[in-house]
């Protein structure tokens, strides 16, 4: 398992170094092991440099940059070992329009092989979804699900 952890880590790390600049439209990032000697206990450090900025500790990143970095890591793992489906609950909430666009582009690529279920308040995410469901509570406390066409919602 030490070997499998190392192999998986290296694969995910390689992927992460591609996915990050794709979502950020530039910049670079990589994972590193805090203890190369002890693969059973080692932690995983994340080093990030947004495009045009200097390498610095992740805590100084903005709310949106942190979220997009985490998304890049999650997508990297998903690409190495896809699950049949993926549930994302309001993951796009801190992202601006440009980042939401790239986020959705990647989701749609991965959705060719896996089912993606995305809870969102963002119209941009809704516009590019294949299927839309609305959850309503006409009767207070009682949830209902309805099929939605985007023109209904935007109206």
């Amino acid at each position, binding site marked *: *398992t030490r070997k*499998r*952890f190392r*192999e*998986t880590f290296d694969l*995910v790390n390689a992927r992460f170094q591609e996915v990050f600049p794709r979502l950020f439209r530039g910049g670079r990032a990589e994972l590193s092991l*805090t203890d190369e000697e002890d693969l059973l206990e*080692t*932690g*995983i450090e*994340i080093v990030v440099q947004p495009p045009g900025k200097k390498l610095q500790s992740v805590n100084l*990143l903005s709310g949106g940059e*942190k*979220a997009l*970095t*985490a*998304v890049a*890591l*999650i997508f990297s*793992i*998903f690409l*190495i070992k896809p*699950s*049949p*489906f*993926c*549930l*994302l*609950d*309001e*993951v796009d909430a801190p992202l601006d329009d440009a980042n939401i666009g790239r986020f959705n582009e990647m989701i*749609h690529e991965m*959705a*060719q092989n896996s*089912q*993606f*279920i*995305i*809870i969102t*308040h963002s119209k941009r*995410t*809704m516009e*590019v*979804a*294949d*299927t*839309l*469901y*609305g*959850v*309503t*509570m006409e*009767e*207070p*406390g*009682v*949830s*209902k*699900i309805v099929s*939605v066409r985007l023109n209904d919602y935007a109206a």
Partner: protein
Amino acid sequence: MKIRRVDILGFKSFVDRISLDLQEGVTAILGPNGCGKSNIVDAIRWVMGEQNAKHLRGRSMEDVIFGGSETRKPLGMAEVSIVFGNEDGLAPVAFRDYAEIMVTRRLHRSGESEYLINKSPCRLLDITELFMDTGVGARAYSVIEQGKIGMILNAKPEDRRFLIEEAA
């Protein structure tokens, strides 16, 4: 195995039975605050075997049973079924001939739990084994709950290794 459908009855705010048909590709779920969107995520995690009520925002598992509203009395049972399509033949040997596999979980207010596969009572162990064998289990990187995306960057390095471990 793709998810074909999720049926929810008596789970959290789904006091009336609802059916969510799931298609290929990207499904977006929308609606106002508090209408039940995240409750759907909780329902899917619950039917897939979540045993920790805190992971479903509850204090005890009984919290997932519809507790009543202004117009409706509380219910005595929560039930969620998830139906998988066996197109890719990934189902375990015992289910090789089925076109669909339905996993059902029920919780009674008495505390009694029921688990069923294709409407046939089984043990929790059979369900967890089914999910393990088919690789369909809700892995840490395939379910991101509301507000949890920030935890990855804020976590200590040791607390991130589980993501790699689950993929390994």
